[in-house]
């Protein structure tokens, strides 16, 4: 499989790590555990939702127990949570997590993540070529992608009264949705979608473009259209129907469909964002080697295919498509997992931001989301 576009040109200022992350005494050999923090709805689960087949298999195979915690709801929040520890030179209690490109860039810059020991990850060679060389981590020294995907629109037919929600404008203005719309706290997705709706190219937008998008959002918010800005926790509300429609990561929505046929997604005509989330190993991780073994495990196309079949995101591992078809030929036709050119043509990547820009835009956006 191929993501087609390079979804990972995120960090403009990326490249050289300004600081080096400290390594801890690796306990991997004595403690057969690895602590993995990840987003919700981001791994395969059994039908009853009570176990995670690929993780179970990993543990069986290696004897390493994975403490899998879905406490990564949002990049900023997660960063704020671990930063004091990383800054203070303390262990975060985690060995690996999956951060979005731009966040990886920041983590590398601040010396909060360690270099990967590729000797422990032979399968790293399976990394999709288009993702091998990214601006924020040249040569993939610090990070390896977990999944890529789109941010689009998710909605619940029951709550929209059977109405389809297909554009951002509709999302932000349709009175039928009043007070039942959520947007993401992830600035690049929310603002990106709006800018595209306004006909801008998010790979090269200006301050004015950004401000225009913020204005549109502010208007929607002031009109009472928007229920909340959320991280990954929108899924429960969407499933329940408290949220009629939202900006969502498409794979999440597809997963909800298994339990609830009213759940729908739409990729806006004017464009939608493409991103990827990447494994990183934080400073002072106690089980670095185990984490690398875990990454290696998932870089086996057969394993990755199982994940992709469930999560409905784009796998970064070569050969996944072939394995997918083996599981279910239909999956090969899923535009979310194996995007067609037509879909990819509409997808855009948010451009990298300088530190100053990031501060400026964050301030504008957070004034919107926190107040």
């Amino acid at each position, binding site marked *: 499989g191929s993501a087609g576009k390079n979804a990972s040109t995120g960090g403009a200022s990326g490249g050289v790590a300004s600081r080096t992350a400290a390594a801890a005494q690796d306990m991997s050999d004595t403690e057969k555990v690895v602590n993995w923090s990840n987003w*919700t709805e981001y791994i395969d689960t059994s039908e009853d*939702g009570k176990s995670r087949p690929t993780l179970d298999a990993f543990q069986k195979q290696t004897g390493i127990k994975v*403490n*899998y*915690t*879905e*406490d990564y*709801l949002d990049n900023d929040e997660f960063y704020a*949570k*671990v930063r*004091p*520890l990383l800054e*203070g030179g*303390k*262990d*975060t*209690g*985690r060995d690996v997590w999956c951060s979005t490109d731009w966040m990886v860039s920041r983590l590398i810059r601040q010396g909060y993540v360690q270099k990967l020991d590729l000797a422990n990850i032979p399968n790293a060679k399976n990394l999709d070529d288009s993702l091998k060389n990214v601006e924020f981590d040249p040569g993939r020294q610090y990070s390896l992608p977990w999944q890529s995907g789109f941010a689009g629109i998710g909605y619940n037919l029951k709550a929209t009264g059977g109405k389809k929600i297909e554009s951002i404008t509709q999302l932000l203005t349709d009175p039928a949705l009043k007070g039942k719309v959520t947007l993401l706290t992830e600035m690049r997705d929310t603002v990106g979608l709006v800018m595209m709706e306004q006909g801008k190219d998010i790979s090269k937008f200006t301050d004015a473009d950004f401000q225009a998008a913020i204005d549109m959002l502010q208007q929607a918010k002031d009109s009472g259209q928007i229920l909340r800005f959320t*991280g*990954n*926790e929108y899924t*429960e509300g969407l*499933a*329940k129907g408290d949220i009629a429609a939202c900006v969502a990561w498409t794979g999440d929505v597809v997963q909800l469909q298994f*339990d*609830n046929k009213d759940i729908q997604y739409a990729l806006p005509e004017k464009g939608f964002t493409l991103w990827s989330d990447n494994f990183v190993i934080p400073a002072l991780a106690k089980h670095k080697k185990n984490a690398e073994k875990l990454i290696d495990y998932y870089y086996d196309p057969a394993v990755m295919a199982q994940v992709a079949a469930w999560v409905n995101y784009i796998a970064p591992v070569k050969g996944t498509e072939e394995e997918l078809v083996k599981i279910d030929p239909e999956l090969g036709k899923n535009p979310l997992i194996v995007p067609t050119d037509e879909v990819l043509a509409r997808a855009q990547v948010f451009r990298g931001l300088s530190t100053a820009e990031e501060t400026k835009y964050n301030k504008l956006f957070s004034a919107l989301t926190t107040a």
Partner: protein
Amino acid sequence: MSWIKRHLITFAAIAVLIYMLVPNVIVAVFSFNDPAGKYNYTFNEFSTEAWTNPCGAQGICESLGLSLQVGVIASLAATALGTMIAFALGRYRFRGRSATNLLIFMPMATPEVVMGSSLLTLFLMLGVPSGRTAILIAHIMFCVSFVVVAVKARVATLDPKLEEAAADLGANPTQTFLRVTLPLAAPGIAAGALLAFSLSFDDYIITNFNASPSSITFPMYVWGASARGVPVQVYVIGTIMFLLALIVVMTGQLISSRRNRQVA
């Protein structure tokens, strides 16, 4: 009609009580649910599974353990510190009394966000790591005032004649304190400790400012879980704690009232 009128207050009181307890009923009911998906919001099927395995959700019992541990230590420490202050305020006249009173009142008049964030600011500046110790420090701090108020109310009603009587009967100051003053203040101290424990056990806002990812208290666990689907076990533990509180306080009451009625 006049019967209703005469019992208006009773009806109103019962209605309010129901309002207060409805959420607990819901929690209890949903603790017996076997949810359809990972979200426990509609009653799907009766099940006692979560009751048989209350630690079944990852991390839940660790967080409960931490909360209980913090609650016990914080309430003990706050009770010790607060009781001493209460005795000083309730028994002595000294310079700086009103300043002390103000200092005791201020934490109660400070919103939790302010307290939590200011402490975080201090810790950030001093480089004190967040985590268990920081949580404990914070909890002791905000519990002290409540203990002071509870104990002082009791100490203020203590008859100083009783201490004089003890001295008159040959008890030296230490004996007087241990045998008379302390036992008499005990109900107030117990009330203060219980209040401190429940405040500590229930606190989210201040805790969240000072917790680290490796020190998740039970309320923080619940908060986190609320974002990714609350496991049924949370409802089980909520119900258990509710019942536990009922039982503990009721038996405490029973024992003391029986002791009072003894040989009546």
